[in-house]
């Protein structure tokens, strides 16, 4: 395993006010890479989607803990967002654009599509009843 140049880990409750906390933390963490504003926004958006999924889906019946790990490998950012919630039965289906299990709540079903469009790779591991981990990586080119 490669050795990270920097790493942080934070654990927070699945409360919607923590969506902005997670985005801010990641924004701060990658600031040494001097990201362009669009790169920063894209990564923050992807993080926001993953954390919102934990709150809206994984812990839909209550409050649980969300663990976010961020690492830097050179100019590549690695982010893992993990929950101990209900898990996903069919990952392929869950990742289809516009698919949502909550149509009445104005969820657009675009969470995974945004993560895939705004990062370089998205990897989802999940087991029903045991939780879900979403791992994303993104290369930051930075301001030249």
């Amino acid at each position, binding site marked *: 395993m490669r050795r990270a140049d920097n790493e942080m880990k934070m654990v927070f409750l699945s409360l919607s006010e923590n969506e902005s906390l997670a985005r801010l933390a990641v924004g701060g963490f990658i600031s040494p890479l001097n990201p362009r504003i669009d790169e920063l926004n894209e990564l923050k958006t992807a993080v*926001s989607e993953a954390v*919102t999924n934990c*709150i809206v889906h994984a812990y839909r019946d209550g409050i649980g803990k969300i663990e976010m790990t961020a690492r830097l490998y050179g100019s590549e950012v690695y982010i893992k967002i993990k929950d101990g919630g209900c898990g996903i039965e069919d990952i392929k289906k869950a990742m289809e654009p516009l698919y949502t299990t909550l149509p009445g709540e*104005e*969820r657009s079903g675009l969470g995974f*599509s945004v993560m895939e469009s705004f990062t370089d790779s998205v990897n989802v591991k999940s087991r029903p009843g045991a939780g879900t981990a979403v791992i994303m990586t993104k290369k930051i080119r930075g301001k030249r």
Partner: protein
Amino acid sequence: MPVYITQSGSVMTARITGEIDHHSALWLRSDIDTAINDSSPTKLLLDFSAVTFMDSSGVGLVMGRFKNMKERGGKVELVNMPEYIKKVMSLAGMDRLLKEGR
């Protein structure tokens, strides 16, 4: 206050400020819908000029207001949208509601 609502004739403008995520969308949705119910505009302009962040919850917000206005025979237009928000909207094909140059 996260959204400033003004009306000129039958056109209502909702100027959204700050961040649109799952947390804030709930309040924005309720504020905008209350205003629509109160004054029944025929056109709703959603102004994104003061939005500093938006994830797919913003797409849900636009889709919901689009449906609400359509049911009343009205229209929705999106104005002053920063580039990166356009990118999120285009994933849902919602960029077709965009009015350029306003």
